[in-house]
């Protein structure tokens, strides 16, 4: 287990614990987010186990990516009631596409990068719709203290760059450019770290907001 991975796991565990300690205080979307971080933590542990025992962690990602899709779209579905039905139906379509990809393009033993490329536009769209929704339902709180602003920003950055990196990644792998592949991996690692740090802040902000509302 590399130091980089240990830092990543520790961060996930801390965010997860923060969410679980504040769970009762959190609003529904942020409870989903906490569960999502918990699932991510467990899946990351599972990837290590699979890598050590079966020398392949591919199957974990084939299972994890639909679960991730479920949690993120459920999070936005709670915040965007008009899009809830469409996002719920998209789960069915997404699962079907995951199955088709596993059967025809990337078997469970391969990394499911197609699924990542497929899910990113949906997450980006959700974040943009949420930004638009924020403009129509402005909160009195300063924007920089609003959890949703930070989460949307973080989601936008992570998934736009993930999409960008994976698009390059596949091309670079084919051309055998190992230097660039390493750079891309580092970029994605850093993006992942920023995403989970912001998620921790977001959970804290939501808990604090709920506490203030209760006190009022």
């Amino acid at each position, binding site marked *: 287990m590399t130091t980089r991975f240990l830092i990543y796991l520790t961060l996930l565990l801390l965010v997860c614990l923060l969410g679980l300690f504040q769970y009762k205080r959190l609003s529904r979307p942020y409870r989903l987010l906490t569960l999502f971080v918990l699932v991510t933590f467990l899946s990351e542990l599972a990837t290590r186990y699979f890598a050590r025992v079966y020398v392949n962690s591919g199957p974990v990602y084939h299972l994890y990516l639909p679960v991730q899709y479920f949690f993120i779209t459920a999070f936005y579905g709670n915040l965007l009631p008009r899009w809830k039905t469409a996002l719920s139906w998209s789960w069915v379509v997404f699962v079907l596409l995951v199955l088709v990809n596993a059967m025809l393009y990337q078997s469970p033993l391969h990394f499911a990068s197609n699924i990542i490329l497929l899910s990113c536009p949906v997450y980006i769209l959700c974040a943009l719709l949420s930004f638009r929704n924020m403009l129509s339902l402005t909160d009195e709180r300063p924007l920089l203290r609003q959890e949703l602003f930070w989460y949307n920003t973080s989601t936008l950055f992570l998934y736009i760059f993930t999409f960008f990196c994976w698009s390059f990644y596949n091309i670079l792998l084919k*051309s055998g450019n190992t*230097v660039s592949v390493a750079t891309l991996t580092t970029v994605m690692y850093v993006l992942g770290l920023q995403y989970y740090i912001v998620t921790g802040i977001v959970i804290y902000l939501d808990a604090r907001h709920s506490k203030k509302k209760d006190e009022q």
Partner: protein
Amino acid sequence: MNNNISEIYVFIIAGILLFGILAGFIVSFVITYYKKQQQNAREKHILQTQFNEDLLKSTIEIQEKAFDDISRELHDNIGQQLSAVSIYLNLLLRDAAHPQDTRLQSCADIIGSSLQDLRQLTQTLLGEKITTTGLVQSLKLQVERINRLGICTANLQTNVPTVRLNPRKSIILFRIVQEAISNASKHCPGCTIDIGIDQRPRSLQITISDNGPGFQTAATQAGGIGLINMRSRAKTIGAEYRLSSMPDKGTSIEIVVPEEET
């Protein structure tokens, strides 16, 4: 190797461009959001002010309705009963064995005086009466009533016999003066209250001042219900309200109704 380096350059440039676009988007969102927040705050403030004004108008209307009801009740019920007692007393006086009995005469006088007070009180309570009688005349009656009651000494000075005001404003200005007199008589019984009506070319100015103990305006301005009422009433008719008072220097209230508001 060259191909690898050029691919890294492409990646870095594309990444920087993407980052710039994203950062630009977030900055423009923050600016738009702040503008929207400010606009909402302004709209909320306008709505709140409108609501407060409507609430104040309703309160004043309800108060006027209550005054009217009390006035009619006093006139139709107690007034009629006192009139009946007065008639009976006069009959008693006529048929009495000793018509010179001063006790019966005193009773008749007291009842007569009470009836007169009651009539004036009903007039000052009835908004309709204030508008038909006119502001200046109504204030004269009020001053007479105060002087007769003997709690305070009131004087009215005016440079015009009548003022041109719409009925609603007349009633509200009358109520402000009534409130000021009531405050003065409550806090300094026996003081002198001077009421001035000054019709100016572009405004109407009403001043109510007394030689009472006065108070620190800074300490009382926010709290006193009477003062708040006067200020609120003045605001509803677009009049300017000024209060000045100092300990041992008396109190003065100035109401200025601009021409377009009269």
